């Protein structure tokens, strides 16, 4: 087996930053409402990773609790958000985010 030097925690944070940025990129460049919503989930995941990383650094469990709460909120948000997407699709017949640009039909 080869022996590589162990990974410093900051790599995890950088990974988290990259994932977060990619999430933002998805938000900015994707055109389907569902994908945009998935990009938000990606951002939440990235934040969770940094929570868990900080928890590891500080040897405290609070970060885990926060990320747990983030997951719960994400689940709630997914339920409501997807219901909204369903309603939007029913009312406007489109999922293209650029076409949903007015409050009123």
């Amino acid at each position, binding site marked *: 087996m080869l022996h590589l030097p162990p990974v410093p925690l900051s790599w995890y944070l950088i990974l988290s930053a990259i994932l977060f940025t990619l999430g933002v990129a998805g938000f900015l*460049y994707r055109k389907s409402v569902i994908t945009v919503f998935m990009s938000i989930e990606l951002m939440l995941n990235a934040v969770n990773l940094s929570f868990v990383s900080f928890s590891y650094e500080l040897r405290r469990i609070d970060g885990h609790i926060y990320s747990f709460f983030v997951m719960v909120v994400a689940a709630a948000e997914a339920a409501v958000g997807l219901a909204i997407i369903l309603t939007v699709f029913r009312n406007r017949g489109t999922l293209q985010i650029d076409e949903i*640009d007015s409050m009123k039909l």
Partner: protein
Amino acid sequence: MNFWLIPLFPLIGFLLNGLFGKRLSKSAVNVIGIGSIAVSFVYVVIVLSRLYPLDAARSEHYFTWIQSGFLQVGFDLTVDRLTAVMLLIVTGVGLLIHIYAAGYMEHEGGYYRFFSYFNLFVFFMLLLVLASNLLLMFVGWEGVGLCSYLLVGFYFTEDFAGKAANKAFIVNRIGDFGFSLGIFLIVVTFKTLDFGKIAASVATMPVEAAAGTLTAITLLLFVGATGKSAQLPLYVWLPDAMAAPTPVSALIHAATMVTAGVYMIARVSFLYSHAPLAMQVVAVIGLATAVFAATIGITQNDIKRVFAYSTVSQLGYMFLGVGIGAYSAGIFHLMTHAFFKALLFLGAGSVIHGLGGEQDLRHMGGLRKAMPITFITLGIASLAISGFPGFSGFYSKDAILSAAYTHAPWMFWVGAFTAGMTAFYVFRAYFLAFFGTYRGHQHAHESPLSMTLPLIVLAILAAFGGFLNVPAWLSPLFPLAEHENATAMVISAAFGIGGIVLAVVLYVVRPSLAESLKTRAGSFYTLVLNKYYVDEFYSAAVVKPLESLSRVVLWKGVDKAVIDTSLVNGSGRVVRGWGALLRQLQSGSIRNYATWVLAGSLLVIFVLGLVGDAR
């Protein structure tokens, strides 16, 4: 002793009837409405018998209501001998009138509404009486004003009732304005609103230095009293308030609320005692009101209006009493007045009820056979108000007039003459209603037991209430001045009997004489019949100028030109201009928004993370 329970019962009654009354049966509303007052009355009796000698005031502190700088206002209730008298009057007479109302209002709509307002009134009146500081008293003061407004406007579908309610409320605002100014001045001067503390600091004040302030305070408070107790010049609302159902007139506009001013002056007598000028003003206004209202009372044809002016006149007496320092006499008269005037109104109500709503004396007559109980009890009340020897009014009126004789003889003479007029117009109304031949078209009948029973109880009180020696009971609070004056007693009684005799002559023996007198008096009679054109004068002098001022200056000048055009529309134009510019950002494209959010968060992270202290 839990004084707070006393006003609590009527409040509960109000809440039950007000919230659920619509769904309750009439008997349930009765039980709640009357029961709450009865429980309160019984509780008052229990409390007072426990505290019996009641030599010193008993205060209870429940919680601090307002804490603001130096000012601390607590929710405190006090019971002393003065309060005891008022408590018994409010709950006792109130209970009788509630019972009466159950019969009187039987066929009226809004039954539960009436009783819930009535209970609310009793609650506020008890709060007013029990309050141990001016602000809490003011709450009660305003509360009874509110109930008065609600009940005057009880028949709100009728135009005149709504107008009368508005009039009562607005005229009272003028008085309350003075009252609140007085309270502010007290706060500034004494740093407290508690009666006990004010009394203590007044006692140690240098008399000369404080005289000006105290005079100002007492006069401002008196302005409030003239509004609530219908004194010159703010009496105009009371006769119109007769639009309310008769039990309301009896309880609120005769027995209790309108006497609040007298009670208030007696309550803060320690202030008035140090302001002789203000007391003189109170006495003169009271006397003037007494004479003025009595003359109007002679000419009125509406039975309730006669008694309304009589109320104004009698209130004038009370103010005369407290104005010349005879506080206990004033309170004594307040009590007897509560008995006989409530009785007069309830009797009038019984007549009106028996005649199916007829109020005009010219359409009555000869009712004594149809309504024997009303006839007898109303007779007792008339004798009592006339100061017929042996009846309650005689003693209390005599106490005031004797004190007036000692204070200034001319006041006595005017007061005695007014007593004669009082006797005359009350008996005029009495004879017009019960003697002669019937001039109306209704089938007169006696009222039900629930109405006659309170009449009988009140008649007993009106007849013998004078033997309750209220001045002696109040002597720890208001030292008894020895001015029992046999001459004055005889003279005032003579005036009263003279008035009765005159009424007998004019309205029973030779009714034609009255008509010829009326024509001979001519223009003066017209003047008095139209109540000296005071309402018209107020309308021309106050209401019309105010209206035109509002219309021309405030509406067209200030509101339209300044506020509407420049401020509202101007700011609108500015906002619209900026909006047209900023609207470009609000494209509705979520992705553009997200880009802005990204840029903003970039800035924040940059500032906080690299430049700021976050490291």
